[in-house]
């Protein structure tokens, strides 16, 4: 003790002698630590940015081609004797002709077009020639004809999908060398495809089908689209929004403004925080047990997906909503009570509007998380192969549907390389939706904040 006291004046005198122009050892150490910390921060941000850029480049380079697709456009003769033997143009009768019959029609049309353009097919068999066309094409034509039965007997200019391998050839995924090793496509077919392109029959264009069409089977990636998944995700988001916004806001307002502070509310608070940390797949099991097995709701339905995602999203909405309510200054509550407002009036007239931007931000971030959630949906059967569009609300909520992230998952598990491109394309669509939601969050927040 006396030692410290005795040495105390020494640093003081040293400090007096030091110049402001020269840094002493302590300042040097402190400044070095600060500089080091800044470098750590910059390195962390650079790593994060590089990871983001890498992610975006890999997704966009693989996924962007899925928005363009190779099509064949040619005149197709619709022979009445094959497609409608009865001649009464009755759709019920016409639908007895299967896609096999339409495949023959398309094949004949392609052969005719090749002959007209004077393209040399060499030794290719008719089956090989027809192989440049997608397996989906007969179904496309059949649907079109059944929708417009009066066209039978005429010749129409129709656009059909090219085979996925041919499409891959134009996108650089399939080469002459790889085609020799591939049992699904022959090099001659690729040569023919090049000639068809020169003749103007085959061309690449923007692929609306990728956004509007339903999923397709393993053999025809070229026909697979996100239509059902987008509708399914949209329906689920409606369910999540309609349920979790009122429940979440009511729960957080009650807990923050009305509930007594005691052991029970503490317990509830801890458990809400715990719920937010529960792995999402657990909610999937819960949904399977409660909504499907117990309540008997249909599998794969957006209503069940929406309910499960609501359960998952609620704590993630309540926590930021409570934080937003807590950040409203107590003086505002005092002011409202002081002029004789009831507790409810003070909350709804003053506290809630002030907390609204924070609540909305939490809400939209919760929705965005729900939109990208995959695991719980797998358990309630949303990974099923669904080709029929769900109906209009509210019945549509109970029809089978898929969801965007689940579609990504199911495409990545399929063998055909065409689906890899589709999966990345679906991720791009998902990212666009998330960007739109974030933009909406920012706009809403700005609008609410402008009032004060």
């Amino acid at each position: 003790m006396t030692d410290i006291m005795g040495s105390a004046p020494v640093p003081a005198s040293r400090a007096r002698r030091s110049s402001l122009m020269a840094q002493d050892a302590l300042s040097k150490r402190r400044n070095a630590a600060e500089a080091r910390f800044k470098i750590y921060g910059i390195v962390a941000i650079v790593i994060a940015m590089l990871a983001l850029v890498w992610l975006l480049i890999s997704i966009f380079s693989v996924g962007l081609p899925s928005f363009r697709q190779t099509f064949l456009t040619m005149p197709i003769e619709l022979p009445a004797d094959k497609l409608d033997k009865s001649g009464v143009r009755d759709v019920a009768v016409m639908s007895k002709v299967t896609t096999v019959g339409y495949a023959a029609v398309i094949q004949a049309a392609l052969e005719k077009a090749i002959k007209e353009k004077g393209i040399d097919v060499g030794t290719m068999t008719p089956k090989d020639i027809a192989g440049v066309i997608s397996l989906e094409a007969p179904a496309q034509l059949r649907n079109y004809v059944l929708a417009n039965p009066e066209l039978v007997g005429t010749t129409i200019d129709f656009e059909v999908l090219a085979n996925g391998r041919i499409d891959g050839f134009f996108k650089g995924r399939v080469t002459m060398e790889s085609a020799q090793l591939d049992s699904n496509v022959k090099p001659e077919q690729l040569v023919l495809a090049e000639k068809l392109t020169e003749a103007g029959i085959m061309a690449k264009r923007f692929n609306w089908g990728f956004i509007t069409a339903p999923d397709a089977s393993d053999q025809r990636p070229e026909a697979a689209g996100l239509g059902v998944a987008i509708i399914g995700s949209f329906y689920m988001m409606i369910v999540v929004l309609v349920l979790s916004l009122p429940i979440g806001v009511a729960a957080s307002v009650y807990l923050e403004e009305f509930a007594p502070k005691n052991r029970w509310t503490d317990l509830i608070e801890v458990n809400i925080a715990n719920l937010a940390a529960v792995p999402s797949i657990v909610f999937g099991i819960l949904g399977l047990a409660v909504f499907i097995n117990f309540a008997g709701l249909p599998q794969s339905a957006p209503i069940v997906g929406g309910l499960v995602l609501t359960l998952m999203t609620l704590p993630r909405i309540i926590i930021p909503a409570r934080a937003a309510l807590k950040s409203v200054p107590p003086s505002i509550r005092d002011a409202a009570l002081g002029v004789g407002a009831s507790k409810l009036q003070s909350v709804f007239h003053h506290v809630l509007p002030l907390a609204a931007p924070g609540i909305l931000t939490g809400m939209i971030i919760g929705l965005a998380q729900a939109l990208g959630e995959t695991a719980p949906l797998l358990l309630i059967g949303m990974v099923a192969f669904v080709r029929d569009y769900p109906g209009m609300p509210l019945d549509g909520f109970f029809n089978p549907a898929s969801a965007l992230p689940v579609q990504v998952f199911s495409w990545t598990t399929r063998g055909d390389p065409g689906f890899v491109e589709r999966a990345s394309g679906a991720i791009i669509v998902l990212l666009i939706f998330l960007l739109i939601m974030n933009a909406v969050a920012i706009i809403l927040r700005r609008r609410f904040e402008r009032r004060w």
Partner: protein
Amino acid sequence: MNDMRIAERDVDSMESKITARKVQVFYGQNHALKDVDVDILDKTVTAFIGPSGCGKSTFLRCLNRMNDTIDGCSVKGSIKLDSEDIYDPKVDPVQLRAKVGMVFQKPNPFPKSIYDNVAYGPKIHGLTRNKAELDEVVETSLRKAALWNEAKDRLQSPGTGLSGGQQQRLCIARAIATSPEVLLMDEPCSALDPIATAQVEELIDELRSQFSVVIVTHSMQQAARVSQRTAFFHLGNLVEYGETGQIFTNPKDPRTESYITGRIG
């Protein structure tokens, strides 16, 4: 001590608005206010002075039951407004607060327009029948609060955009717009500069003609300037209550004398 207070009150012929008897306030285990007996007279400015933590703000908040919002706070004894017990279970504190308005230490206008700030109270209490009446209430309230000339051209601009002194006058306008019978002010000038303080003090003096005003203040000069009656609180006790002039010139309790001469507090 009690005898002295009664003697003082006898001097004053005006009727009392609020009668507090044996008021005890507990914050959990903490006995914050002990046996307070006060008669607050109608159309009079009553000042509560005392060192920090002496219970004067606590007592003020008892008068419109703002203490109800504090967890673990309990009030015993009787406080009567016009001979009605305000702590009776039948009393709705919301109705009470419409009669007993309050202005807080820090200006706390709602983050809304000046007009909406003043119009809020009359709106929720249904005091006006139409827009024209509401406009009139807003104008008279702002006039009474000496803010009309500064605010009449910007009624729709936000109340939070006003200066500190203007904000506090806006809060006063908001409090008097509901036509309260008593106006409680908890250190209304502590966040204001001397010029704004002077304006608010002038205002308090004018308001005395319509309401009974109770003001908590740390400034003894302010208490001396604006009030007719003064109560001195110390450590949760009401030490002395009487006419302001008498308290400041001829205090009866040695603790009051020590405080006003700056020896304690």
